[in-house]
């Protein structure tokens, strides 16, 4: 079952006779929540605010942070070409990769949603890359596949094409990572499949009776009814893709090269924070990332009013 809307669990009415039991249950609730509260304040909220403060400081771990106002942000936007490289690379990765990944996932979900035999096998095979794609092992494999003497070039050689090293070429390196992202279309595909199951068959039968063709059914029934799921996948995959790290790190050996062409935003953040120990600057980069992701998610939500159909508003 797909449950995109996130509702708060219903609160039950509190009768006065039940007051003492309820107070007891309230206290019990805090006990159950104790680990979460600790984690929330110490490991999440505290560091979140601390990194905001640090983003206005010059902090190199060995010395105390010193307050420098918005210098980090000024430097980022006006004097750091690598920041713009990272932003551009990540933007291309997200805005080219995610739509292609979702279209692939949608088409495959449509092709599989026909009550065919062996569905679970196909589903498993298509899902496998999603499960393994973020690992160092697969990133290593990718590095070989698209290397100078890699499998891709071996295959090309059989038809007489002498391929370049796709990984070492600044024009194609990012493309191989986008391909790696598309390769992982399995998890949005499973969400689409679950969504397709929810569409009542009667709608299609009624459309058949009215003589509707395949395309009409796709555009008038499937897409509108699936739009909340498409939206859900879009938000989720954009957020995920923006934070991709391992493939770029392993494929480029941690450098983001060649010529910064695979310098993912998170990789640049890692380099600044943990290689050069510019922790203040890294924090500023991190908060800029938060603002970008929050902004994109907000735009997604606003735009969704125009195309997402929730069934109860018409």
């Amino acid at each position, binding site marked *: 079952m797909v*449950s995109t809307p*996130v509702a*708060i*669990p219903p*609160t*039950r009415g509190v009768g006065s006779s039940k007051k003492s039991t*309820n107070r007891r249950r*309230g206290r019990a*609730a805090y006990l*159950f929540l104790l*680990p*979460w509260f*600790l*984690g*929330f304040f*110490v*490991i*999440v909220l*505290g*560091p979140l605010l601390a*990194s905001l403060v*640090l983003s206005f400081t010059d902090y190199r771990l060995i010395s105390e942070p010193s307050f420098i106002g918005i210098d980090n942000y000024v430097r980022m936007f006006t004097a750091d070409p690598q920041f713009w490289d990272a932003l551009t690379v990540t933007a291309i990765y997200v805005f080219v990769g995610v739509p292609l990944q979702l279209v692939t996932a949608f088409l*495959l979900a449509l*092709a599989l949603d026909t009550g*065919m035999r062996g569905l679970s096998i*196909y*589903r498993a*095979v*298509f899902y*496998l890359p999603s*499960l*393994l794609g973020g*690992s*160092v*092992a*697969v990133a*290593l*494999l990718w590095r*070989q*596949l698209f290397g100078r003497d890699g*499998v891709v070039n*071996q*295959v090309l050689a059989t038809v007489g094409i002498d391929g370049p090293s796709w990984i070492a070429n600044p024009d194609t390196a990012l493309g191989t990572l986008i391909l790696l992202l598309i390769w992982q279309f399995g*998890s949005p595909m*499973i*969400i689409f499949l679950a969504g397709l199951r929810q569409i009542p068959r*009667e709608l299609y*039968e009624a459309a058949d*009776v009215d003589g509707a063709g395949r395309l009409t059914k796709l555009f008038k029934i499937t897409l509108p009814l699936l739009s909340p799921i498409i939206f859900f996948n879009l938000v989720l995959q954009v*957020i995920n893709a*923006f*934070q991709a790290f391992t493939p770029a*790190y*392993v494929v480029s050996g941690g450098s983001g090269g060649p010529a910064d062409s695979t310098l993912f935003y*998170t990789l640049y953040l*890692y380099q600044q*924070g943990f290689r050069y120990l510019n922790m203040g600057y890294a*924090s500023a980069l991190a908060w800029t990332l*938060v603002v970008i992701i929050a902004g994109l*998610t907000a735009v997604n939500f606003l735009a969704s009013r125009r195309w997402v159909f929730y069934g109860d508003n018409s």
Partner: protein
Amino acid sequence: MATIPETVTRRASAADHGAARRRRVRSTRFLRILRITLLTILALGMIYPLLWMLGASFKPADEIFASPGLLPETWTLDNYVKGWNGFGLSFGTFFANSAIVTALAVVGNLIACTLAAYAFGRLEFRFKAMWFALMLLTIMIPHHVVIVPQYVLFSEFGWINTFLPLIVPKFLATDAFFIFLMVQFLRSLPRELDEAAELDGAGPFRTFFSVILPLLTPALTTTAVFTFIWTWSDFFTPLIYLTDPSRYTVPLGLNAFLDANGESAWGSLFAMATLSLGPVLGFFIVAQKYLVRGIATTGLK
């Protein structure tokens, strides 16, 4: 079920109808075969790289770059032997480290997230809606934004180069999507069960342990499997906290192996990479049902 109006069925004449139907049957069968063929080709293409890596791990070095074929012409276990004793340190160490970290992470998530989910899903307390909203918000926060202060905090604790930064957060329910997953699951369980337990005089703790927990098993399995897979494959967090090679987890070991040997040792690299994927594949095969359900309910990766 929509009933078909009589006019529609009567519209086409009988002869016409029969021919059209035969044509349609033939074309749908053709389409079905076409679809299955295309899907099979695509599926094979999708797993080709993985199968190729598996094959390459048994190939001698010169053969890896000689053909894109799957099966080795000469089989060898050399890659595994050489790779296992990688560079001074054995991959056995890395596997043991990964196993410890992963097992404890699973236990941590199971305990902490279940407790929190029960409170959010079934108990009443002040500002519940607010806390629930904050919990959901933490799912959306990019991990990278808290990593610098977390690093400073954990190094104050003297936790650098220990497994604690990888494990302790799990015992504090910081993987909030699993709380969300279990709350969603709890909502599908009838409340009458809790109420019956309450009438029998069970407090929230009794109810939790003897009524809710056993029913939560599917959600617990999903949580365990995903925690296992993610922790096992995690590269970023160990990369930051573990600096001594004897503490490396498998992904760090693979990366270090690549750094140390360059690309001269692809065979051994593929052998170890294949081994590193083994446990994930194993869990996937055993627990596929729970994985699919988990993705479908919450959009986990």
